[in-house]
């Protein structure tokens, strides 16, 4: 491999940093796929795959992707919650991979809640 110059080094830094984004922890929001037994049975895995494909396509690194347990409304699964900094969390219900992709592009990237798929806005209070 040819010897590096300072500019090469900075480029390697920028490229490698993308690899490490999960460790840096600079997020403006997160998307949670509910993966209780009910969610998985209803197809939550496909939702995960669809979303991760979109993350990859867009090289999005400022939104944390995570999974969590059952959201408590098993009949509405598969569900996801989208939390963007400064806005109330939004829960989406009865998703398909296509709906998930639309949420990704219109809400997470575009900032517009897709009201048709929404189950509710806000979350339970923690007592």
């Amino acid at each position, binding site marked *: 491999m040819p010897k590096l110059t300072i500019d090469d080094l900075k480029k*390697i*830094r920028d490229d*490698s*940093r993308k690899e490490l984004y999960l460790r840096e922890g600079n997020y403006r929001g997160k998307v949670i796929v509910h993966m209780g037994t009910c969610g998985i049975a209803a197809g939550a895995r496909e939702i995960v795959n669809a979303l991760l494909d979109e993350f990859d396509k867009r090289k999005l690194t400022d939104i944390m992707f995570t999974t969590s347990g059952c959201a408590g409304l098993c009949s509405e699964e598969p569900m996801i919650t989208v939390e963007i900094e400064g806005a109330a969390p939004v829960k989406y219900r009865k998703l398909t991979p296509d709906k998930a992709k639309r949420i990704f592009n219109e809400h997470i990237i575009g900032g517009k809640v897709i009201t048709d798929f929404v189950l509710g806005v806000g979350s339970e209070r923690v007592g």
Partner: protein
Amino acid sequence: MAEKKRIELMVCTGTGCFAGGAYQIIDELKKELELFGLKEEVTVVATGCNGFCGQGPLMVVLPDNIFYGWLETKDIHHLVEEHFLKGRPVKKLMFIPPEQKEPLPLISDIPFFKKQLLIVLRNKGIIDPEKITDYIARDGYLAISKVLSSMNPIDVVNEILKSGLRGRGGAGFPTGRKWQVASQQSKSPKYLIANCDEGDPGAYMDRSVLESDPHSVIEGMTIAGYAIGSTNGFIYVRTEYPLAIKRMRIAIEQAQEYGLLGKNILGTNFNFEIEIREGSGAFVCGEETSLIHSIEGNIPEPRQRPPFPAQEGLWGCPTVINNVETLANVPVIISRGADWFSNIGTETSKGTKIFSLVGKINNTGLIEVPMGITLREVVYEIGGGIPKDKKFKAVQTGGPSGGCIPAELLDSPIDFESLQKAGSMMGSGGMIVMDEDTCVVDVAKFFIQFTNDESCGKCVSCRDGSDALLEVLTRISNGEGMDGDVEFLTELAESVKDASMCGLGQTLPNPVLSTIRYFKEEYEAHIKEKRCPALVCRNLIEYYIDPNKCVGCLLCIKTCPTEAIKGESKHIHIIDQEKCSKCGQCMEVCPPKISAILKITGKDINNMVQLTELISCKEWKKEHEPAHS
């Protein structure tokens, strides 16, 4: 590469976790992730030492920041399914603070981590130490770029001077001063040495730096080389550190491949090479002049200074020798500036210090804290206090060259001057916590035994002086102490200090002097009353079976390895003191609700009723039952 990664598992593979089976955990994780089809979404990263060694094998789950400890391969299937597939973190693998019931899921909530400040260990657990790109991603090698593109050697020396950085190898000599002296020498070539001998018992800070972030040391060395005008560096590592050596070797190769070591670094005309030299692990080899002799292939004995190595070192040439931790600070100081660095810490001690926190402490591990933090914060907040609610007695800092600091000084800040004033020293950063069951005479004896073994023998004062100290301490702990022993020890200790040539002899009396200073009454108890208050010194204690409690169950008789206990079923057992080896196993097997076996010392030994004849428990009770009124 398809970027589907959503979770990273940062599995600690420092030496402790490695020994605890970290790589078996990694294999199991990979197997299970494959099984659940999560291989691409969830990746496993082998990191250097996380620091919370008492919880190993362990991992941190990112980006959620969840900490799991005491992992076993049998937990992994459940963990992968519950957390990584279903998103439900597994409580039973989380850290539960001592004396509490609820686990703390987030690493940021665990007090052990919360009070730390990471400068040297900034990349620990975040990067894969065997991947140079991970280091670069975290701004690695930007400091050397800055140096080579915009600073003269003298600017670098001045920046380090201004930062107030002091050597982390023990004595706390200002690093900038040392570099300045070397840079002003006209003789060439000049050499740079990173000291990773780390001979203090219980210390593993430097090993951990090499294991978790080897490139930070390479970068620090390269900057130092540029500053003093050297093109050759050595890393002196003890051969007992195979993992550190392996990672360093990989790091050097990668840096060479990237043109960050070797000729024309980063396209400039600066050249710098690094070689690893393995030492065979003698304490005295950590002393700079001995270390230099060792690299030269000579007997590692120290020599008189001056001339200092910065004037006349390796093969007679100007040589800067710095501790590994000192050097790992350098890239950060260059990148973030001397002003930033000198704002951390106290007036005279800047930055942070890594300590290995061991001994009688709940949270054993490796910590990096700002200078000026108090001992109390370290012991009780980061360390989580003393196990089993025992009382804190002292903390030994500075290893065999340091001293014991008692409870009344727990609120003093940790910096070079305060520790010295307390009769101890910073040393390289070992911190051994002692509870009420620790005997200070025994501790002093332990350290003198160590330095006596490790003395190279060149100076009479160190060689024979440590012999004499050991002899008196042994006598005292054997119950043969005499009036005047404490005064004799003090006088002898002072002369060993004064008459020895190198730091080994000059500091070896510290454990004796500091324990006499703070715990004189304990020495007196050993000498005058033949009593060991902490019940440690074997010749001063006896195990004794309380006839009022013994039920004659035979358990202790079956356990005793020297057949020193006689008795029959339902008869009171009796220990034959002549045969007893004081191993204490009888006390451990005696059922807790009976607790018939006592450990006694001093006057108590004579005050106990000594049975000679076997007597049944029933009969004893009849004779001794207190009359009911």
